[in-house]
């Protein structure tokens, strides 16, 4: 380190030391740009990890009902079909201690209201109905 300091000056060495210190933290699995909210009960979780991971899902804040939903070397998982609620996810390296969770996130699922859904359904149905009427008439208008 002293030789390096002599060769390159103090600042780059400090930067190098910071990188080296930070390296173990970066090696732990982390969620990458996790979603916070979903209006259709689905989303994709991405994570960065040097190897295999364990991913768990729970519905309570203390992870009492947590269950493993994925274990392996992929770096993403599609989640879908969830009803309204708050869902917790946590991540750890597959070879880490069972309690050594390196990242946790919460995603709130709040579906569109049925009034809004049926509103769009009605608009779509009306447009479709007009189309059918125009085509069934089958002859030029006027």
């Amino acid at each position, binding site marked *: 380190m002293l030789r390096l300091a002599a060769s390159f000056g103090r600042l780059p060495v400090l930067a190098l030391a910071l990188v080296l210190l930070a390296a173990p933290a970066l090696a732990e699995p982390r969620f990458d740009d996790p979603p916070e909210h979903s209006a259709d009960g689905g989303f994709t979780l991405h994570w960065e990890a040097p190897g295999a991971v364990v991913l768990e899902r729970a519905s309570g804040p203390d992870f009492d009902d947590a269950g493993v939903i994925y274990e392996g070397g992929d770096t993403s*998982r599609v989640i879908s079909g969830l009803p309204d609620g708050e869902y917790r996810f946590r991540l750890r390296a597959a070879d880490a201690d069972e309690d050594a969770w390196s990242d946790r996130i919460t995603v709130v699922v709040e579906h569109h209201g049925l009034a809004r859904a049926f509103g769009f*359904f009605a608009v779509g149905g009306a447009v479709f109905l007009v189309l059918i009427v*125009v085509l069934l008439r089958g002859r030029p208008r006027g």
Partner: protein
Amino acid sequence: MTALEDPILPTSLAWGLLAAFSVLWVALGAWLGRRNYTAADHMLAGRNVGLALASATAMATWVTANTTMTAPQLALELGVWGMLGYSLGALGLILFAPLARRIRELMPHGFTSGDFIRLRYGTFTWRVFLGVSLIYAFGWLISMAMAGGVLINALAGIDYRVGMTVILTVCVIYTLLGGLRAVIGTDFIQTVIIIAGAAFLAWMTIDRVGFEAIHFDLMEERPELLSLLFPAAIMFLFNNLLFGVGEIFHSNVWWSRAFAFGRNVGFRAYLLGGLLWLPIPIVAGFVALATPALGINVPAADMVGPLVAAEVLGLTGAIVVFIVVFAALASSLDSLLAATSDLVTRDIYRGHIRPQASEQAQLRATKIIVVLLGLLTWLAASYRGEVPVVGSLAALLYFTGAFVASAIWPIVAGLYWRRANPQAAAWAMLLGSGLGLASYFMIGWYVAALVGAAVSLVVMVAGTWLFPRPFDWDRLAHDDRDASPGRGNPEVAT
């Protein structure tokens, strides 16, 4: 899209399959196109395609990478309604049946959908329509080239650019050699492969996993997928229907077939093609519902179909998926290349650059444009993920929904309403696309086409009701032989 950790298909086997089917399609293209002497032969297969080939090409072209890869994705994301909603795309083909008959009656010598819009509405609306049409066509071409490259990479580990280049090159070569005749001929064979492959996979999935296990695990892990009151899926139903209608009603892929099919063939061909297509997304999408029961991880939603197939059938499943998706991609890529090159030849080269171009000059231009389109598509698809375009296959697909759905009413009103206002047609497309895109970002991808179609309808009806512009239908039949911008339809030119 995320590739699988370990390729399922041995690379040498994948290359063998790729080579065998490439040789088959190119040889068929050369053989089928041996009697193409004029631009009409090349672009419209002599205007005399019979019912069997016509139905097969309608159905096979509508089975795209989107059907074979996005139908399972929609089942995974929107459940039972997603799967059934996707199959409503068949109504696009079925409802085009009466339009095909009317198009053939009104324009017996027509070449492209652009011809109709120009003659019916004038230059301004024609240019807006060309913009909508080319954005959609180019987006579709790129997404299919991307899908081919990603699929080959995911299943066999072959480099993305190499796989994408091979598929695109094969399609360019046989479209170039055989024109629409080759496209329709290969579509027939590809249809048989697609139906047999999709049915085989669904049957094997049910046989290996069973309905009871599929239902139980879905209820445990993803219960909303079985709910009939799933709000986003309810919103999606008519959105997908109108998206399909918009894609077919406006695109020259379908208009060129309406011109190419023999007299009285178009109506029955589109009806039959639609009915044949209806179960395909249900069969292809159903396999995705087995995901929880199989306990497989899906890293990217649009890979769920191939993943389930490979899990259930192993190497055999991977081979079947490879062949089915290659056939689906080829049948759509070639159609789109042929139809888009026709549109560019007629509406840009002849319409804007060389109005007096001879038949032979147009034939040469069509071939050059096929190559240029292939090169542009290759260039854009080569930079997948490096260009700030919409993220995934499905996201890109439904992004274009706002554009195409806004074209439904200008087309329908142009064909059936004598007093349809040309300016209203242009504004219906502009406002429909704009508000459809706004809803895409503000509400969700599952409403963009619906909003686009609804806005387009309101603008078209209001514009025509307030400012009616009578039109003489006979002008379409007389002017479509050699009309050019500025002199074809001076009354409606704006």
